């Protein structure tokens, strides 16, 4: 990537800065900032993954062998916070930063300096958060959901709250930037309904972020004042209500989980048509489905709270609203399958991950439908069934889509082809071990194993051991991913063509590989047949 500028003659007069500090720390270039986001995300993915390894190692067999229960709780809490706010969200922002300007024909993001700031907040936020593990009071151990009164018993509340504030500020700035870019900087002729689905998914996600991150900031601020300033928002003894926090938190939390999956829908909607060599089925329906899911995400929050003692009317409302989400989600899955139907498919690594996404995300959707049924949820709630559910939608959903997107655009970013063989080895190891890891957790939950426990009855021993073995091997498989990326960036000899994939459509493939440091200084002339959705009829 460092050589990007030298390959392109029209770029000579303003290439990448030679000084490392100036280039990476003071960057206003959407590509460099996108790279920073992606590298940061990968680092957090391995840190969060190492916490998961501690969890699975302790759960390998009954009895406590490795860590004290309190440290175990720190691990589950930090694993979630790091993976959600450090790995998945920044990865999508990185992909959006890199690709949105290229896909809509813009020269850069609309607010480049704010772009730099929104990235550089993150390393500080996570230093603050991760430092708590080395402080005398220990890290947060009350779960990533931070339910009071438990979360207020920790000594790291202030660190946690300020870290969350920083992450929220970063996300809001990133979202503003993406909305401003998409709404103002599209090349002439790039109508909203000609935009790639990935751009659409990010536009909608950005509105979700702006709507809910301030809600989270409010909730954690109330935790802070309850802990240190004598307020009683959530303290029953002072006239407050612990359940109030849960309502506020999940009003943020449910849109948050869609923030982590809608851009994944967008990625998969780019990749499947490319490798099926056939336009996406029902473009408008896909866009509308994403918008519907985003809207519904605001009225389903209390399905996380079926066991807090909601009134009957509340249970019924949130159950029905939650079940409704199955309809637009089903439309998306059916449309992906229909895109494949009648295509001319090849199965390069991005396509393999995208197909695995469709199947395994759908399995996560199925368990989601089961969880939506409140009377059954009285049993599922807070068990390993839930753990299995959200790891299917987040690991084999969001993370598989991120990996697919990385393989899909890596040649465009680096100018080199990655190793297809090692990509496929990475894929098959990931897809097998992730199922060994998470599928048995459905059984554990149904049999009655609560989540967030460091030790368990021996009736749960067999499936926990299987799950742990899957976990170690899935974790190890991701080192292959790291290897493939390092190879593609620095060692691969195979040059990538401009249009890396035979069936790829869209503006990004009209650019050289690697993409020059500055692109679309002059807005491109849009030819509808170059776009994936140039002739939208349905």
């Amino acid at each position, binding site marked *: 990537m460092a050589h990007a500028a030298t390959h392109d003659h029209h770029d000579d007069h303003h290439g990448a800065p030679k000084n490392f500090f100036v280039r990476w720390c003071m960057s206003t270039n959407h590509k460099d900032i996108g790279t920073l986001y992606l590298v940061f995300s990968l680092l957090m993915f391995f840190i969060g993954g190492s916490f998961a390894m501690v969890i699975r190692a302790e759960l390998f067999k009954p009895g406590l062998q490795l860590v004290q229960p309190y440290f175990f709780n720190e691990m589950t809490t930090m694993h979630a916070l790091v993976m959600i706010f450090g790995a998945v969200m920044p990865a999508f922002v990185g992909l959006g930063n890199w690709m949105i300007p290229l896909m809509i024909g813009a020269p850069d993001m609309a607010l480049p300096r704010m772009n730099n700031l929104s990235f550089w907040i993150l390393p500080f936020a996570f230093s603050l958060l991760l430092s708590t593990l080395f402080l005398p009071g220990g890290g947060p151990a009350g779960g990533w959901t931070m339910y009071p009164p438990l979360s207020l018993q920790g000594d790291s509340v202030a660190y946690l709250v300020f870290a969350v504030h920083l992450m929220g500020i970063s996300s809001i700035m990133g979202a503003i930037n993406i909305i401003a870019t998409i709404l103002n900087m599209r090349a002439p002729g790039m109508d909203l309904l000609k935009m790639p689905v990935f751009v659409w998914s990010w536009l909608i996600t950005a509105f979700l972020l702006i709507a809910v991150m301030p809600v989270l900031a409010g909730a954690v601020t109330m935790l802070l004042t309850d802990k240190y300033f004598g307020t009683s928002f959530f303290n029953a003894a002072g006239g407050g209500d612990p359940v109030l926090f849960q309502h506020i938190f999940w009003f943020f939390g449910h849109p948050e989980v869609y923030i982590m999956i809608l851009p994944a829908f967008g990625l998969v909607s780019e990749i499947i048509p490319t490798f099926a060599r056939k336009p996406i089925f029902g473009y408008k329906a896909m866009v509308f489905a994403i918008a519907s899911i985003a809207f519904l995400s605001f009225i389903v929050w209390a399905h996380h709270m079926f066991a807090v003692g909601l009134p009957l009317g509340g249970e019924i409302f949130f*159950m029905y609203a939650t*079940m409704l989400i199955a309809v637009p989600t089903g439309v998306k899955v059916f449309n992906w399958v229909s895109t494949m139907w009648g295509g001319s498919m090849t199965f390069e690594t991005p396509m393999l991950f995208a197909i695995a996404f469709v199947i395994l995300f759908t399995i996560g959707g199925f368990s989601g439908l089961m969880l939506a049924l409140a009377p059954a949820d009285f049993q599922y709630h807070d068990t390993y069934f839930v753990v299995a559910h959200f790891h299917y939608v987040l690991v084999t959903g969001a993370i598989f889509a991120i990996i697919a997107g990385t393989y899909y655009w890596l040649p465009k970013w680096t100018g080199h082809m990655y190793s297809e063989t090692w990509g496929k080895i990475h894929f098959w190891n990931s897809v097998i071990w992730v199922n060994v890891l998470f599928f048995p957790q459905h059984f554990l939950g149904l*049999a009655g194993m609560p989540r967030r426990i460091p030790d368990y*009855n021996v009736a749960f021993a067999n499936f926990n051991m299987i799950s742990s073995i899957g976990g170690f091997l899935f974790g190890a498989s991701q080192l292959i991913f790291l290897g493939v990326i390092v190879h593609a960036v620095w060692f691969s000899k195979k040059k990538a063509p401009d249009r890396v994939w035979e069936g790829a459509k869209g503006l990004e493939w009209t650019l050289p590989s690697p993409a020059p440091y500055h692109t679309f200084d002059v807005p491109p002339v849009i030819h509808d047949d170059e776009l994936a959705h140039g002739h939208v009829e349905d």
Partner: protein
Amino acid sequence: MTSGGIKPGSIKRAVAASALFALTMFGGVASANPQPGQLNMTRGASTWSPEAYFLNNVALGVCVVIGILVFGAMFIAMFRFRKSRGAVAEKWSHNTTLEIVWTTIPVIILIVLAYLATGGLRTFADTTGSEMTVKVTGYQWKWRYDYVEYKGKAIDKVGFMSKLDRESDETRQLHSGLDPNAVKVDGYNTYLINVDKPLVVPVGTKIRFVITAGDVIHSWWVPALGWKMDAIPGIVNAAWTNIVEPGVYRGQCAELCGQDHGFMPIVVQALPKAEFDKWLADQQAEANKPQQPAQPAAPAAASTAAAPATAQATDAPASQGHQG
């Protein structure tokens, strides 16, 4: 799923396969307490618990059938429409009829599921007509049970703490060197799911639980009863059960409540009514006995393990070994 791909024969095969799969999933899980290798939810042992179980099975069945159809279509597509087999991409990108069909059919399925689920919710929410009230209070990291009312009569001073049994507690310490497999009651492994003093209740009685907590949020969950209910400081939640079979039913705290969240189990011992009446009468007599003296009256009884003595009464009579 899509045009022309699925013939009637393959649908029949798919349904047969899913039925077979469903049968293996559900078969052989009759016990109310966790069993090694258990694949599905327990049917439970209360009048309401089959609601959750039935809904779980129906929803799982629906998901398995839809999954076979969708994934089947995907796999057919992946084999039929490969470039390596010379497939040439078609140009179409929408089909209004199909889109209406696959929006409408899920809606119908959801309406059926919603109807079934609403029935279960309504019966669960109705705590009226109970013959007994037990107050459950969660603490870090034990439960307190107070018998409030039975058959219309207030009960005074019958209440006790219930915490992890000593054998589990010793075994679960880090580097204890003790084997969790060795923690057994009547041949059933009770590691981390046994307590020093279980909640004793009668069968065939609608029991109302009022549930709260003293410090942080806990959640009272016995899978055999079919539900869990959060125990929240400052809030009193209500739930009910009516246990059908006498037995010992085990559960655990289900809401993260701090370092020993995994070590505050729940054990409910359901006795036949007559036995329960006797047990309760003994507890009341014990509680209302003058505090100080009483020593001369009791020694003979106290020396035998069978005596229902005080709050330390041990793991009550009989059925500790029944696993439901």
